[in-house]
């Protein structure tokens, strides 16, 4: 089965028109010695009926947040996705279109991307947003490369030790062969101490990268950090959580020059890690260094308002090795999903969602403390996720997570820096019953495995 429309009779007629005797003759330019003289070793072809059965069987071998209450986060969250998002974003006219190179044939996607850029500006308080990057990790790397190009500074890039370790690792991979050193600023108290940043930043620093809420879920002294960075002329890069902006001050208000985020929480299923949505916004003055596609408003030849890809001279297909980035295909459909999602929530829905996250996460912490399961690893304010240090009589974090799958919970993410710490996220999707259930189930593990990782 390969979705071929042409019948054998048509194929013969087409070959005749071409003037070839056989299909094999069409491949004459492939040298004989490298032609494959066997079939590929692949599993046999399946009908839709068999394929469906196989996919269901394998999907059934997974335990998943459709049946388990998910308290895992660390950059991917079980936020509720309204039906309008799935329904509208699954339209073939969006799903099976290419990048909007031909403006007249793509006004639908172009207008949505223009709306997306506007929504991200409204959300963040920043002046310009692009039409998406892959996800947050490479987004952080792009932000740092952008800051280097914009400042022409070659000193160490300063990154708070509380940034998501996978984003930091991605940044290191991207910049492995480039000029700047990536310097991680230790955060022994679970947040970046402004005094520490003040001592580290100087006028050769291209940028400072801080995540707020940080990897542990805690809030940073973000305004102070931004002020210190900018006083030294270093660009301030804030990694943010879009859902948090229902309550928290946005990167624009806080003084960020570049804002980057994982946009998964805006309508993307968790899907084992992707596709997600890289968000990037910046100040107007930096727009010509911004990576990725931008949609601009203009008029057509009759004066009608319309939309096109703008500032393409930044991009690889024109600038080649001098481009601001190598990105081409981005996450278009997931930007469309986020646009529908944000429009469906609106300001009140976003605020309500954020308030639920705040209230429910704090309630779970309260219950866990009451039951003496442990305590916050660091006493910091947090939004929807917290780093919880398990009491001595509790098993290690990984064991807790493994154990509680049987009780119907994905209890959290074992913290990569300490086997006693569990990173617990509570979104608006969690019910009071699930929250109480997790607290009880964790409490019941006390003493079960003794201390250990």
């Amino acid at each position, binding site marked *: 089965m390969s979705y*071929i429309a042409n019948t054998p009779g048509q194929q013969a007629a087409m070959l005749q028109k071409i003037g070839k005797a056989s299909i094999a003759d069409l491949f004459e330019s492939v040298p004989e010695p490298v032609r*494959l003289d066997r079939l590929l070793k692949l599993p046999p072809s399946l009908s839709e009926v068999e394929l469906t059965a196989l996919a269901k069987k394998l999907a059934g071998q997974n335990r998943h947040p459709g049946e388990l209450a998910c308290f895992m986060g660390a950059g991917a969250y079980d936020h509720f996705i309204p039906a309008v998002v799935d329904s509208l974003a699954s339209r073939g006219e969006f799903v099976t279109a290419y990048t909007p190179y031909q403006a007249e044939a793509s006004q639908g996607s172009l207008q949505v991307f223009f709306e997306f850029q506007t929504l991200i500006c409204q959300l963040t308080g920043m002046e310009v*947003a692009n039409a*998406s990057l892959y996800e947050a990790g490479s987004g952080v790397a792009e932000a740092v490369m952008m800051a280097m190009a914009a400042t022409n500074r070659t000193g160490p890039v300063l990154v708070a030790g509380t940034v998501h370790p996978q984003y930091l690792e991605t940044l290191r991979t991207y910049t492995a062969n480039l000029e700047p050193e990536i310097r991680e600023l230790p955060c022994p108290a679970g947040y970046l101490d402004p005094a520490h940043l003040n001592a580290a930043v100087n006028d050769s620093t291209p940028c400072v990268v801080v995540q707020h809420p940080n990897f542990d879920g805690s809030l940073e002294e973000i305004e102070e950090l931004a002020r210190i960075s900018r006083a030294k002329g270093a660009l301030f890069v804030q990694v943010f959580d879009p859902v948090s902006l229902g309550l928290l001050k946005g990167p624009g208000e806080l003084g960020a020059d570049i804002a980057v985020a994982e946009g998964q929480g805006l309508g993307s299923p968790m899907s084992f*890690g992707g596709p*997600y949505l890289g968000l990037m916004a910046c100040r107007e003055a930096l727009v010509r260094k911004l990576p990725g596609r931008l949609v601009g408003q203009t008029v*057509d030849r009759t004066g009608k308002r319309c939309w096109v890809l703008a500032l393409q001279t930044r991009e690889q297909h024109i600038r080649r090795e001098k481009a601001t980035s190598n990105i081409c295909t981005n996450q278009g459909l997931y930007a469309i999903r986020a646009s529908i999602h944000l429009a469906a929530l609106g300001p009140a829905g976003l605020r309500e969602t954020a308030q639920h996250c705040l209230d429910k996460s704090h309630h779970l912490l309260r219950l866990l403390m009451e039951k003496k399961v442990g305590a916050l690893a660091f006493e910091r304010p947090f939004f929807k996720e917290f780093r919880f240090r398990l009491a001595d009589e509790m098993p290690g974090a990984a064991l807790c997570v493994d154990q509680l799958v049987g009780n119907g919970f994905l209890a959290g993410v074992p913290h990569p820096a300490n086997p006693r710490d569990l990173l617990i996220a509570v979104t608006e999707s969690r019910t009071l019953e699930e929250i109480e259930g997790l607290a009880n189930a964790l409490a019941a593990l006390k003493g079960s495995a003794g201390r250990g990782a």
Partner: protein
Amino acid sequence: MENNQSTGLLFEIAKPGRRCHTLPPSGVPSATLDACFTRQAPPPLPEVAELDLVRHFTNLSARNMAIDCNFYPLGSCTMKYNPKRHERLVGLPGLATLHPLQPDQTTQGMLAILYETQAMLAEIAGLHACSLQPAAGAQGELSALLVAAAYFRHRGENRTRVLVPDSAHGTNPASAAIAGFDSVTIKSGEDGLVDLADLESKLDERTAVFMITNPNTLGLFDHQILEITLKVHDKGGLVYLDGANMNAILGITRPGDFGADMMHYNVHKTFTGPHGAGGPGSGPIAVRDMLEPFLPSPVVTRDPDGTFRLKHDRPLSIGRVRSFFGNVGVLVRGWLYLRTLGPDGVRQVSEQAVLNANYLLALLKDHIEVPKGKGCMHEFVASAKALRREKRVSAMDIAKRLLDKGYHSPTVYFPLVVAEALMIEPTETESQETLDQFAATLISVLGEDPAVLHESPHELSISRPDEVAATKQPVLRWKSA
């Protein structure tokens, strides 16, 4: 019928006080944060009613051309049919809702799919190992070049240059720059293939990688490929295959067999991950055995007892190029597609893609110049150079007029080595009838009054946007009046 209902900008159809999504009471006590962290008012997002929202996006979608509605011969993009069964199955809760950091024992079904995908992509490549992590073709290129850099560093070799043909996609030199290499351009010869003399003159012990797209962006298989890969290997360099054009050679020949050491796939082209109006993609890379230790982490491994694992502990790995595993939703579609095709079907894809392209070429070549058009693989590049000279009709004019006729245009002005380029890729899923109708339409367009072409399209909602203004005074977001 023109339907403009609810198609103003979202911000123009909004009204304060409208709601769409609401939540039940939280049932828990309310918490607060210190005022220094919180905002006065929520972000000024639009407030829309659900029906207006639905009409807005539905009616906007109708302003797109798409494979589901139109023949879309956009060269280099492989706009083949995207099977509906994939969309249904990828949405199974046991796949779509998985958290990326769940314990391996809770994701055995997903890991089995990804493991098999790695193995199938390695077999199709004729290479040893595969990383599914890169998010798109360009990120695959970057990942592989970083692998090459790490490999040479490990061997104590200082190689600083990446050679890129002038017909290559812009992502190739852009990726080379990020990976820390100087990119050096290799000329194409008269025949549109790699100019061997130019390659030879630029190949030396500074060469880390030669990036080749084969079939190349002219739709030609470079028959010198064994000579080329031999020359690069002789100087100790590696050969990278840009796999954007794999739709031409699946099961016909394998990159590993013709000397490539690494390559990327575009799952969103060759293996039908839908393009989604610009993404998501997925750009897995396959590499030869000596490069395997350097691949991004994690990879999926299988224990002797059949248990699958995400393996993170790989000391020579370049590390991550993104967070989490990869664009899994796209990879699962690729897996579903390959399981549907089987070994015969995979080969048929390329046979029929090449048959369709050659048939279309045969229908068109007496009507428009196809500079290297004796034959082709899965696509060919026509040139409107003569028309431009004789009638002032450009490739863009032709492209725009085709839109009037209900066809998406070919890729225009790429590759850069052909003047007034129209790059045409029909793909295997189109019928002879569609190709006949398209050819007849294109031929009639070529004969039309230039004045009609200059002002086309005439039948779409807009025509010839002012792109210069959009770049000179960019308006990149809506602002309230």
